[in-house]
């Protein structure tokens, strides 16, 4: 019996709900095997290939390259030949074939009608949502007609922080004055906007500044460079940050307001705020406490390269516990950073400058000094903790030998 298998643009998590078709690897009439890549999609954050869910022949393709597809829509259809159903086809091949088309037609018919804009979900799906304490109205369904499926609920429940907040619907009725040029507010830009607004709206931000003398560190770095090891200062910063996080666990934490708990995390995964042409990305160095400075340096460079090329995978961007923001190379003395929700703080490194410094002996010396700031969630901690955290960081970086003491 021949069956028609639909290839859908399924939910990739992280609240992404649309993607652009970049390239088809196959055309109508092509024979494909299971898991063979069919189409390349650009989502808000990454490029993804959609593999064939079944072997068969491409029956139809519903979008052109460059089209934007919403999650849950059928991109193409594959005709499969199910050998196992042979007896059935012997019995009445034609009848069943016509029947399966009827079913398909009926299904399509239901995809358009939802006049009251209700959330569509089977009772069992609603039961799961109820048991998980998830508000089903908040879930973007990926099933036919946007129906919420069991998996949508499970996925939503797993990522409560990123998904539970939904932006207010833009009022489509409001007429805007005619703009000279319109830029589509979508994709990564919109996603950044959502995250930033949410963070600023929910977290009372406080930023504390200090300056750090990098002279010793830069000297040590030059020595290393002469020995053939080219390590960025940022890698040292991250090492120092991880040591500080271990000593001040409130900085490596998440606040769960509804449950009235603050979760102190035992994993140290450092998000690296990275500027790319598409916008701000935050790739993550996972388990930074278990990695050497050299290894982190390599990993950071690799991640940043990937980010700039737009090749980051979802796994590269998940589960940061603390974020650092190295704006030094771009310039700037100070800023008012926004915390990468649901984290509790973000540390920013500014431009290093040579400045005249008055020494203990009242002499003048030219030193390399960098401004740093720690922006924290004032709900979970106070300024004193932030100052202590920064002081400890300062100590480790101004006297890099101290980093040795923390070697495991």
């Amino acid at each position, binding site marked *: 019996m021949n069956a028609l298998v639909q290839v859908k643009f399924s939910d990739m998590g992280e609240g992404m709900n649309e993607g652009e078709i970049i390239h088809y690897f196959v055309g109508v009439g092509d024979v494909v095997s299971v898991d063979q890549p069919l189409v390349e999609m650009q989502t808000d954050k990454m490029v993804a290939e959609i593999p064939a869910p079944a072997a068969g022949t491409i029956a139809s393709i519903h979008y052109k390259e460059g089209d934007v597809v919403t999650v849950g829509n059928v991109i193409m259809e594959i005709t499969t030949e199910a050998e196992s159903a042979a007896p059935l086809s012997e019995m009445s091949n034609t009848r069943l074939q016509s029947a399966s088309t009827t*079913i398909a037609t009926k299904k399509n018919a239901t995809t358009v009608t939802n006049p009251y804009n209700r959330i569509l979900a*089977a009772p069992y799906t609603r039961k799961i949502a109820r048991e998980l304490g998830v508000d089903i109205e908040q879930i973007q369904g990926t099933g036919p007609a946007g129906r919420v499926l069991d998996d949508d609920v499970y996925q939503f429940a797993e990522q409560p922080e990123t998904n539970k907040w939904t932006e207010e619907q833009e009022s489509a009725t409001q007429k805007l004055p005619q703009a000279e040029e319109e830029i589509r507010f979508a994709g990564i830009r919109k996603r950044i906007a959502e995250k930033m607004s949410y963070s600023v709206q929910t977290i009372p931000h406080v930023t504390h500044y200090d300056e750090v003398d990098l002279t010793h560190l830069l000297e040590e770095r030059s020595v290393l460079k002469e020995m053939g090891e080219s390590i960025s200062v940022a890698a040292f910063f991250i090492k120092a940050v991880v040591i500080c996080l271990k000593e001040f666990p409130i900085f490596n934490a998440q606040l769960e307001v509804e449950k009235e708990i603050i979760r102190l995390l035992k994993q140290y995964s450092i998000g690296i705020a990275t500027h790319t042409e598409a916008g701000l990305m935050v790739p993550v160095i996972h388990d930074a406490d278990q990695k050497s400075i050299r290894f982190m340096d390599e990993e950071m460079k690799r991640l940043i390269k990937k980010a700039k090329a737009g090749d980051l995978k979802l796994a590269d961007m998940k589960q940061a516990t603390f974020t650092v923001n190295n704006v030094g190379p771009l310039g700037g003395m100070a800023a008012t950073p926004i915390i990468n929700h649901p984290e509790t703080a973000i540390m920013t490194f500014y431009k290093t400058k040579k400045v005249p410094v008055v020494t203990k002996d009242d002499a003048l010396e030219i030193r390399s000094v960098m401004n740093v700031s720690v922006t924290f969630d004032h709900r979970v901690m106070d300024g004193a903790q932030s100052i202590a955290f920064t002081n400890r960081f300062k100590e480790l970086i101004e006297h890099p030998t101290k980093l040795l003491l923390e070697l495991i």
Partner: protein
Amino acid sequence: MALSKVANKQAVQVGVKELTMIQAINDGLKTMLEEDPKTLLLGEDIGKNGGVFRATDGLQDVFGEKRVIDTPLSEAGFVGTAVGMALNGLKPVVEIQFLGFVYPAFEQIATHVTRMRTRTLGYYSMPMVIRAPYGAGVRSPEIHSDSVEALFVHLPGIKVVCPSTPYDAKGLLLASIADPDPVLFLEPMRLYRGKRQEVPAHDYRIELGKGEIVQQGEDVTIFAWGAMMPIAMEAAELMKEQGISCEVIDLRTLYPLDKAIIADSVQKTGRVVIIHEGHETGGVGSEIVSVIMETSFLYLRAPIEKVTGFDVPVPLFALEHTYLPTTERVSQAIQKVYSF
């Protein structure tokens, strides 16, 4: 009485026989006539002739004209007669030749058979069985193919039973005759001479109001009864080849429905196909849907599908196969609920 006890003992010794459904029913009637002298049979041509389907074949020779009674062609008359017999302590088993012939007797059933217990505040019961072959598929003329169990399921005061195998036919028939209240006993004539099955020669009873899981499954529950059971099983077998595991339940009693077995299975699978050959509107399938809504709403994963006869009088034999639910229609329904 002494004689019948001896006969019963002999039956036990005979053990198990391979019987068709019609033979199992004959055997059941014989067992009851032997066991209980209050049991007697009434119907058109059931005595000398042995019944239109031979359900009573040979019984008049054994039990005589006073216990196996040929009646005139008057359903209202002999059902009314049976009402009088039951009121006076007998256990009449009435044969209606085809369920479609029950309509003249409907007045007796609706006004007396179903009400006597309530009317007499429980002083009298109505230990009567109305046997009726039902359903299409044997190329009968008009009215002979009806499957109007829903009319009786709707009436309080009468149980509705419908076996699908020789074993169940005898066990349910004996339980129906023993029941103090009236039972409409529907016999799927299409299955009368189908598969043979081992049937114990002795008296055994299957509790009324209990369905049976004929095949365990995980993905979709199929509810059926009577002549639709082979269709349900064939469809389940076809679906197995496509990786869909069906649980098939033979409801066996349509009133009262076995709500526990319905709820339990639906809560397991979350997907349901109901099959009956009676007309769709107001059919027993709708009642099952209602039970599911009441007991298992939160477990449903897909809308419930019914595969039923159409809302037309059952057509004559040239077209009856287009009226009856088929394996193909059931397979499509299963695929539909499975892929919802």
